[in-house]
């Protein structure tokens, strides 16, 4: 059990964060809170991916000067860069979604004067 936690603590941590975000999305009635939960959830997934990229004794995924012209670069020396790349995309997607969500939120507030889900439902009816 301890071994499980120690060898995979990052993955477990991501799950905890994911669930926190998920909880906020489902349970919270305030729409901004939902957006916050969404943000936390997406960040947790990014954490998961970044954890995939980890490598023992690996260094940053930027070539050292010593390796620039060598033909056989030891791949084990560097972190796996691919998840990082993917997560750049995910972050951008995150902020784009945030932008649209906020735009919708503001419009909704102008129209109905509240951001609480239950009140909103009442006013839409």
């Amino acid at each position, binding site marked *: 059990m301890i071994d499980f936690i*120690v060898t995979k*603590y*990052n993955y477990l*941590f991501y799950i*905890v*964060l994911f669930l*926190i*975000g998920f*909880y*906020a999305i489902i349970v*919270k*009635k*305030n729409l*901004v*809170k939902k*957006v*916050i*939960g969404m*943000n*936390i959830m997406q*960040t947790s997934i*990014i*954490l998961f991916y*970044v*954890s995939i*990229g*980890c490598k023992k004794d*690996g*260094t*940053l*995924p*930027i070539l050292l000067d010593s390796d620039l012209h060598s033909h056989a670069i030891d791949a084990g020396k560097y*972190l796996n860069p691919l*998840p*990082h*790349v993917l*997560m*750049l995309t995910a*972050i*951008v997607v*995150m*902020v784009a979604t*945030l*932008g649209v969500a*906020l735009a919708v*939120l*503001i419009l909704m*507030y102008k129209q109905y004067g*509240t*951001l*609480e889900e239950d009140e909103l439902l009442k006013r839409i009816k």
Partner: protein
Amino acid sequence: MITPFNFIIMIFVLICAITAITVKDLLSAVVILGAYSFFMCLLWAEMGAVDVAFTEASVSSGIGTILMVVAIIKTTRRSKD
């Protein structure tokens, strides 16, 4: 191989996340979310994902927080939960 630094940041991240969804004042929640993002980006930087950390620092805890703050200023700070 839980490094202490890693662990400390994780605790901060966790605290920020929980606070951000429990605080009733939305402005505080959003600012705490910014802090959450920042700690998160520290964590990533510590894990070697500098590019991601950089992006997160600028995008999520920068622009994202600004946008949310503006949105909250434009709407309301109060929330029931």
